[in-house]
């Protein structure tokens, strides 16, 4: 094996490795990127059905309803709001320890045809003053917090946020 041929082999292999890595990354990106949507985003433009995305906002005070399904499976429904709009979320699972009404939450799941968001994961981690950055951003966009007035207030003080009388349509069931 000459030096030249060996180098050619190496180059070929490297190209193959790099190429397949790029191809894999791109195809995986196409199907598996998970976007973040606030309730107002959904009211403005419905996300494509069947595609998973993350929904975040505040858990609307007084909206948490615990049910038991026909098969004895516990189920939870609550509304996620960013002020102007709210979306109903259905979740079958153990809620995280830090899940509270009035606090920031991020959920992962798909929007059903009835406008109910079926969550497969509910994240409310960290401590009780923590606000998920996406949620803070969504609140800022919906006009409930002006970034010019400094850092977002701690989550506990957002509890007073009332959902506006929802405009008709997709803002909850």
């Amino acid at each position, binding site marked *: *094996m000459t030096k030249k041929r060996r180098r050619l082999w190496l180059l070929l292999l490297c190209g193959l490795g790099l190429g397949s890595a790029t191809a*894999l*990354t791109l195809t*995986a990106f196409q199907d*598996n990127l998970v976007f*973040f949507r606030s309730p107002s985003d959904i009211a403005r433009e419905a996300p494509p059905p069947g595609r998973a995305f993350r929904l975040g906002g505040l858990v609307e005070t007084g909206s948490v309803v*615990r049910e*038991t399904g026909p098969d004895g499976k*516990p189920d939870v429904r609550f509304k996620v709001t960013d002020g102007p709009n709210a979306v109903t979320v259905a979740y079958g699972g153990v809620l995280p320890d830090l899940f509270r009404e009035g606090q920031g939450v991020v959920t*992962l799941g798909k929007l059903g045809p009835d406008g109910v968001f079926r969550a497969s994961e509910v994240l409310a981690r960290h401590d009780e003053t923590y606000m998920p950055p996406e949620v803070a951003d969504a609140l800022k966009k919906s006009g409930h917090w002006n970034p010019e007035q400094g850092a977002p207030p701690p989550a506990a003080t957002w509890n007073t946020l009332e959902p506006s009388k929802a405009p008709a349509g997709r803002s909850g069931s």
Partner: protein
Amino acid sequence: MIPELGHFALALALALSLLQVGVGFWGAHRAEARLMAATAPIAAGVLVAVGAAWACLAWAYVVNDTTVLNVVQNSHSAKPLLYKLSGTWGNHEGSMVLWVLILALCGGAVAGFGANLPSALQARVLAVLALVSVGFLGFILATSNPFDRVWPPPPDGQGLNPILQDPGLAFHPPLLYLGYVGSAVTYAFAVAALLEGRVDAAWGRWVRPWALAAWAFLTLGIALGSWWAYYELGWGGYWFWDPVENASLLPWLAGCALLHSAIVVEKREALKTWTVFLALLAFGLSLLGTFLVRSGVLTSVHAFANDPARGVFILGLLAAFVGGGFLLFAWRAGTLAPAGLFAPLSREGSLVLNNLLLCSIAAVVLVGTLYPMFADLILKEKISVGPPFFNTATLPLAAPLIGAMGFGPVLPWKRARLLPALQRLWWAALAGLGAVLLCLAIEGYRIGPAIGFGAAAWVIGAALADIADRIALFSRPRAALARARGLPRAAWGGALAHAGLGVTILGLAGMGLATDKLALLKPGEATTLAGLEYRLTGLRDVQGPNWTARRATLEVRNGDRLVTVLEPDKRSFAVSRMNTSEAAIHTTWLSDLYAVLGEERDGGAVVRLHHNPLAPWIWLGGALMALGGGLSLSDRRMRVSAPAAKGLKAGARA
């Protein structure tokens, strides 16, 4: 007084490190023997100073000195001693002190055991290490002083995050840091080699034990972290492809590639440029991990800091060390002439393939980890990249890697033929195929787990076949024992590490068959999962040392036989006002029974039950991999030719 001493010791360490940089580079440049000889004692001085600083911090924690801000924010007098000590590194400032302490330990080891290194190489290596420590000591002193005072002192501290109060997590950061910082030593060797323009077998022999030790510690650290996530977070999962987890996986992948390519440099003097590149890359990824975790760009349990100044500082360090290293590489790599030639099908060829695939996986993981950050910055779009992406993108690359893993060790150096290799491995391949068919027969059409079991059987079988072949177990069984004694420990270690990965894959495949169930049970009611009956017999309140809890009692029966009693908790910690779920786990090694208590309502309690087949094998495999690394380190060849390995070995056992 003592905290001020600690602060002073940090400043002293910074001054000594600066001195070490100057003396080391200047001495090596001018070939001044006396200057070069001075670097080792200075490195010892840095070690003493940083050690003293850490001891002062530990003292403040142990006596619960509430005039120290760091103690107030992260400790409490009611905490057990172990968590007071582990609390020193359970926060941003303290963990950086630990980082620098381990770096100083590495410097001390190079100084103490490196007497037989060429003196110019030793001086340059120590100078580069000191440069790294200047960067991090400067970072601590400028932005994250752990000895800041607070006045007036509050009556007691605020406590450590309760989910961090766990023996597994107490040792997770030191092990991980041993891995991260160990790669600083290989980085220093790479930079020194580029400065000297020479990489030879002796260099490879020096770098290999460090790469191996760093990799083994990183393996242990990652396995421990994953195990902790499994039993503590109560989600029943073991790996979430969380950016912070990826940050530790990236240097592991690069370190794994490095330790394999260093073998080629040592044995065959080929792949020199590539090995140097990998050494730079491994440390770069370690620093990137530190940046991601410490700068607060990510939100997770690990991100203590959210001061933008810190992020900018670490980003600057990252740019300086990685950029500087790669610039030097671009400038000087041409001087490293390759020596050994080899055919594509050979041990070297298989190691090249290994490196290529490991680096491709690392590249995919890196893109997936960083993309959301860039998307947020540039596209103003909040995106997350989750497990589905990483699984679909990395598994196709892992499959050929696992296939090649079996072949590599049985191929001879320089030039190989396929047929003899196949002859040695046919029964490992058969075992793999058998495992696939067995899984399909028992579990039905479950392709993923079946392939996983097949891969595990193949990897473990190939490791056994390799050892059997080396000791001539089948061709001359009588002499096998004598040959086994004579076989170098590095061969045993390599086979053990490969088999360890096989064991981990076995666990992953088993977890692919995991089932779970959510049920609302009233006391006396029962539900079944995986053929076992879980009956809720009681709910009561429990008082712990610094928490109160609600505890459920679940009796697990197989028919009439009582298998175990599971008692999952929901704890609330008064000091930090936090709640945690304590999962109850019963392991039989064949499977884990895992129960989590949810909320109570309608006179009953929501419980989540998991049946996790083979789960403990995931971490057992990690321990085996690290053990294999330790066994290789204890090889006589490494000790005789490079005395530093002795120090490493002692470290590996500690």
